[in-house]
């Protein structure tokens, strides 16, 4: 028994460590679907506030941005407070024009010592993240869009 256990222990000693040497050697683990920092396409946004109303964490606030916005008569755009955001993606789902998407630029990159920097204004959200990232969560993930249930009912 003891020898067997020692053998087992040695096998693990020779294995590659599971831990990622983040941030020095490896980036955080992400996939094609990782939901993290948003990206806002300001030219698509119509200022409908659907994203703000969908946010369970009340992380979204609308900001007035002066400029030429033919689609956005009210000139209001969403800004996200990352000290509140839960990365649930309900805002992306609610957006009728796909103006809001999420990238895999994870919260590990957004860690900050200064609390006042967690607030991302629309202009900051429109700027793609500095580091390596890909756009992961768009409404394309919901394709084909869900249809209403067949009529008949029944328990869940």
């Amino acid at each position: 028994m003891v020898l067997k256990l020692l053998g087992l222990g040695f096998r693990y000693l020779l294995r590659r460590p599971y831990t990622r040497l983040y941030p020095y050697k490896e980036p955080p683990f992400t996939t094609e679907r990782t939901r993290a920092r948003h990206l806002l396409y300001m030219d698509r946004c119509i200022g409908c506030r659907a994203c703000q109303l969908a946010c369970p964490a009340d992380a979204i606030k609308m900001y007035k941005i002066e400029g030429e916005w033919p689609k956005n008569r009210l000139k209001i755009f969403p800004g996200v407070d990352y000290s509140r955001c839960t990365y649930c993606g309900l805002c992306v789902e609610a957006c009728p024009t796909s103006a809001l998407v999420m990238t895999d630029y994870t919260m590990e990159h957004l860690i900050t010592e200064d609390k006042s920097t967690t607030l991302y204004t629309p202009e900051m959200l429109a700027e793609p993240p500095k580091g390596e990232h890909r756009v992961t969560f768009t409404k394309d993930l919901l394709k084909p869009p869900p249809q209403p249930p067949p009529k008949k009912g029944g328990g869940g």
Partner: protein
Amino acid sequence: MRKLQVFLGPQHPGAPGNVAFLLTLDGERILDVDLIPGFLHRGFEKMMEYRRWDMDLVMSARICVEDPDHVELSYTHAMDQIFGVDPPERAKYARTIVAEFSRLASHLLWMMHFAGPVAARYATSWAIAAREEVLKWFDYVAGHRIYHHYIYPGGVRWNLPKDLKERTLQVLDRVEGLVRDMERGFFLHPVFQRRARDVGRLKASDAVRLGATGPVLRGSGVAHDIRKALKYDAYGMVDFEIPKGEYGDAYDRAMVRLREMYVSIGIIRQAVQQIPEEGPYRWRLPMALPPGEGVGRVESARGEFMTHIVSTTEKPGGRPLEPYRIKFRGPTMAHLTTVLKHIVHNEEITVADFPVVVGSLDPCPPDIDR
């Protein structure tokens, strides 16, 4: 006899998370134990009354950090009843797969918490390595590691990836290998057996009387499992056994959890083979919540998790999108109050045994406080 009262937790390394206990001691022996909850009270039930039903789903996952998908699942079942929908076949399998992965992740985290106090530090690392594989799988399917928000009223939130079968089977092989090593290196280890055998015994009749559910109940020899009893989602379509113990001690409860990990792996393997290749993954539900009542009962990693939702149009202020009342009932409260007190009163439990007894009950303090 001079009695001594000692607080254990909420910051004590031997405490199972954010709860405290007041222990009444006579020397090393524990005479009585009182649970002191409330450190993690976030007022979820009240918050949810003021949020839309889809936002509530996102909040529900946070009630039990270790096993979020079962909370989502019980919430979803209750919502499905209120909307009167039966999810599509593909979604039923998807829910089953995600729920079983959640059980695996939860049991592996329990293993980490449990192996620490019995001084098997190596087993903690193996458990975390195996859990890491599961969390990466969650990131690949649901986009997040811990809170997935994937199970959704009317089905699942989005479709499963195309290469689900191959990738899931690979992950399961790796996890199973690690679990087998843990079995040989920890569960069958004589030191662990001596530490956990005959500690914290709970008879079957007492377990039923005191409201124990899940692995605690099954460890005492009662083969009750809601997955079998209600056959919800795809559980009626897969084959699995219910592991149970014999003596109802800490060792039996640990072994039940170990065997449940193998059972979960088996269920997922069957489900990825059987899941329909095509078909809808979710029904679109109306935004307005119809009046009605729904109860969702699921077998979570720790036992029965229940969600009761009442929706009415006569709500003051007329809020058609938000439920009138949501009530959650998790398994942990019974385990840390009645069951723990019963064990301490009927057996000679020392301070050193206490983490073993509490660990074997696998509490999830957030589901007491909510």
